[in-house]
């Protein structure tokens, strides 16, 4: 397999993961081919993680969020695929977890992963309001890394019941010191949300929406850029369109969020 020239993404599915198809679509539009693979096919050895360069845990409600969002799916990974995953992490590969995927990564300890022991150090607790929150949020990049390159802001939905980022003060300091906060919730004008609802939709400390691993190759992100790939997916596109129209400007087809996926693909091309 011409791995180096033709990097493929593996998109995890099964047990209530539900955003695998739009995640595949986003990667495809950014120029990366992928396979949606049921976790049981990896466990049974029918597919191999080592054939891929990017592993994605998409959004969903694996195991119905029972025993804590992402916890049961993470247990299934740890109990059955752990050595494969560790090997994958050691290579020049990337791992992305969106929403439920981030919850899985947090429970697996793949973020923040200060060392290779992967203890759980961050948690995505239930939202302050205690219910699922589905709305568009604005994200501002908080670090300059492979994931955030060239992004001024992301405007996409959150849709989760447990996205309230939490960790010890010590962990928070270290995450911030090592520039591991990738995205923060912000106001429309990109000033900090300051914990204020609904800009910060869940109560996450320090407005954290996404963090990377210490080595930068793993990203966990609560909001869903793959759900707003197109201009017409944006919450406020009708008023944006009307403004563009009156300024005599053409309508874009894509949204600003596609840059996020392009960055991922670019990593493998370089």
């Amino acid at each position: 397999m011409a791995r180096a020239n033709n990097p493929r993404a593996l998109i995890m599915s099964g047990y209530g993961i539900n955003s695998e198809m739009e995640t595949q679509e986003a990667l495809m539009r950014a120029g990366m081919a992928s396979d949606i693979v049921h976790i049981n096919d990896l466990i049974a050895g029918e597919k191999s993680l080592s054939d891929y360069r990017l592993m994605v845990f998409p959004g969903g409600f694996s195991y119905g969020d029972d025993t804590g969002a992402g916890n049961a799916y993470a247990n299934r990974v740890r109990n059955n695929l752990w050595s494969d995953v560790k090997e994958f992490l050691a290579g020049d590969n990337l791992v992305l977890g969106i929403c439920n995927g981030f919850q899985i990564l947090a429970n697996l300890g793949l973020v923040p992963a200060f060392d290779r022991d992967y203890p759980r150090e961050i948690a995505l607790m239930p939202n302050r309001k205690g219910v699922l929150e589905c709305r568009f949020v604005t994200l501002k990049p908080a670090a300059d890394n492979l994931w955030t390159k060239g992004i001024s802001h992301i405007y996409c939905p959150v849709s989760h019941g447990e996205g309230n980022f939490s960790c010890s003060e010590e962990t928070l300091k270290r995450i911030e010191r090592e520039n591991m906060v990738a995205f923060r919730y912000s106001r429309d004008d990109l000033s900090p949300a300051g914990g204020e609802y609904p800009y910060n939709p869940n109560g996450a400390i320090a407005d954290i929406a996404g963090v990377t691993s210490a080595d930068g190759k793993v990203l966990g992100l609560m909001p869903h850029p793959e759900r707003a790939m197109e201009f017409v997916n944006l919450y406020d596109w009708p008023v944006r369109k009307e403004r563009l129209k009156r300024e005599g400007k053409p309508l874009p087809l894509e949204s600003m969020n596609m840059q996020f996926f392009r960055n991922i693909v670019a990593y493998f091309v370089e």
Partner: protein
Amino acid sequence: MASYVHRIEVQYTRDPRLPTRTERFRSLGFPLRELHLVDVYTIATARRDFSPDELSQIGAQLSNPVVQRYSVDRPTEAEFDCAIEVGFLPGVTDNAGTTAKQTIEDYFGFRFGEGEAVFSSQLYLVCGDLTPESLQRLTAALANPLVNRVHVRSREEYGKKGMDAITPFVHLHDLQAAGTVDLDLPDAELARIGKEGITDPGTGERRGPLALDLAQLHAIRDYFRGLGRKPTDVELESLAQTWSEHCKHTIFASAMDDVPRGLYKSCIQAATNTIRKEKGDDDICVSVFTDNSGAIVFDDEHLVTCKVETHNSPSALDPFGGALTGIVGVNRDTIGFGLGAKPCINIYGYCVGDPETEPALFRGKNRENPILPPRRIFEGVVRGVDVGGNCSGIPTPQGWCYFHDRYVGKPLVFAGTVGVMPRTRNGRLLHEKQALPGDLVVMVGGRVGKDGIHGATFSSEALDPASPVTAVQIGDPITQKKFSDVIVKEARDLDLYRSITDNGAGGISCSVAEMARESGGCHVLLDRVPLKYPGMAPWEIWISESQERMTLAVPEEKIEAFMSLMKRREVEATVIGTFTDTGRCVVEYNGETVMDVDLDFLHDGLPKKHLRTEPVETVYPEPDVPRPDRLDNLLLAMLGRKNICSKEFISTRYDHTVQGGHVLGPVQGAGRVQTTATLTKVVPGSMKGVGLSQGLFPSYSELDPYRMALAAIDAAVRGLVAIGVPLATIALLDNFCWCSSDEPGRLWQLKRAAFGCYDGAVEFATPFISGKDSMFNDFSGFDADSNPVKISVPPTLLITSIGVHPDVTTAVSMDAKFDGDLVYVVGETGEELGGSEYLAHLGIEGGAVPALDIEAAKVRYERMTDVIKKGLLASAFPVTHGGLLVALAKVAIAGRVGMDLTIPGGMRPDTYLFSESLGRLIVTVAPSDREAFEEIFAGDAHLLGRVAGETFRVSAGKTLIEQPVTAMETAYKAPFGGY
């Protein structure tokens, strides 16, 4: 029997939900300081015990060390005054328990066996001085006695021991065989069997209503006389299911007055047939009425399906479970359409009582079995669709709530699903299916228990503590998600089966017998059906309504591949028989034939009825409405009416962005106003989208059911037209939720409404593609003094519209955009206040229900499509409940902009502003587009004023309203602000 029982308790060290949870219960009137929550897992095993070390490992698997702590066989230590533990009764679906079990199995590499399980429960630790009454009320608010067990302990009783470890296993002892039933009885005794059910030979008690009337029982008796034997209980229960109102829709199907073919054939189906014929090559219908959903053309490669169901009775008893099974049930109508469509949009609708009232109504005398208060029902059904829709990964953008006091005893819960599928795959038309003789009958999904047997017949008798709950069901969306994914994303396209259908009402008795019509017969081995617990009688297995199951016809040569795929996706699949061409439905249990009935008799043997109606004369004088001077306060009051104000807390709780197709969502504009229509992309890469809208006017029904139906159709159609969906692509779905349909007056109203449906559909050329009816939405019970009370829902017709948007980039949202834009009302306003929100607000009955000039509306809607296509509209919004003023206010609030409006003279301003005349839309237009816009609409568009500033002004010679838009937004959002 489990010998080893352990209890693991998991608690957040600092629960982020604590303030919200406490505040919520304080707002319900409980004097709490704090309400803590502990998750409990009770692990029961028989063959092996876990060591303390292993139990610690289990605790670690079930909790998160960063923010939680757990304890094993040791009570949670905390400051509190009282502990309330809420668990499930035996046999109730316990999803968290199942997940915990799977995690333990995976971790230790062993399987739980029979009599071993993990049970989840929730322990509430209450801080606060509650009186015994208040504690009892709190318990009632936390648990539903139909599905939950509750265990209460004071701090002293809790002591150092904590709560007991309770393992709600189901115990059924005697293995039950099939018996025969003697129908050679006097009519009175026969009728009793129909009403109360077969007498169980074991217990001597009646098994619950068959809902068969005397004529039907005679037909059954005569059939078996012809066979020279008595029917078995399996046969009788099976016929009762197949012939039920729910399955055969006898009221809609029977001859009525001078309508010999019945309302369904003469009004609903006839409308569709007429339209399809007239449209010829432009026919949009692909599959109508025959399958689990209806389907229309989406594009050359795809079709979209739609089905809307109701789940009313179960939701009255267990609102959460009722609504949850409602939404996951209708998802199966999508998966079970053709060879399987992918569910891509969910729809909801709730008719409930005013949540601020707590009527004292009881199902039994002497204040026994009180109804659930409206707020409890409302919050429960909202949460049910939340869990069902969100966990299934299906967006739920489209829906509404409607409040009326006559829904207190029987709420209406509508749940719908849109599906998408390729039109062909592997050379097969995917909307067609055909089980062939020799194909295997395969059941996939959940196991069978006593759930839902005899529907939601409410039992007031004390339940045996170890008997399973039968009346209500709680769905398991993840089990369904697993088979949904493997069927519509894998097995279908591998060509592994020939037919599929949902197990809904009547369970496999209906699904298998229905599919048997395709091949010409079936032979089922009932003892092969996997059960949740042993000890069920054959008739129970046959008619059980346990959730999350589908039945498929798998050709023998594909069975190995099919079963292997299911196994790899951890979906339970079992061969339970064979489809045949014998013309018979044969069921065996442990080698004995327990059913052998002609398919023709099973499906078509029920005797015909001829229903008679009596006109209901309603004469309401034109109401005498006091003439207001200024309308500011009225405007704010109307915006705060429950049927008009924001219920945004539902929209944000329901994921409406999953699958990535969000275009126009449930709330729009900077001011976030709830809309009537939504638009969703369902095929990536296509410019097309699926528009959905709905119309419902129960307040018109008693005044004029014919106009009520036209109003519902018009509103549903107009909602779609406003976002740019052309009339020619729109199809309709009908949901009749009637009351007392054995009364000639109610049947007359039904007939009038059905005539309205025919006329509306045919005139707009929008075909019906699917529908469902529920005919007896009546509550019969008692008031606090044990006086009998009957409360019937207002005759309710929901029309759902689905249409294909040709290019979503041209779609128009509801919010006004920029200062200076022109504000128009398109269409004519008449003095039509009958049944309006305005008169309801004033507490006045009467007046003329809006009439519809369909000819004019049709021309108008086609012009709308034209101006939207040309990009001439900045916003558009249909005028419905609350009339013109409410619609204008919503458009302004959504845009967070003011308006300067002048209304024409000639009509009383309040009549003009609150009349609910049909066919109207509010549109805003950029000044530069004025000429082009007015040229198309000519005299049908009436300029009212301009978008301007931050104040909403309306005048008619003098100022009527002058309000900051922010004040209007507050009024609009206040009523449900605390939800």
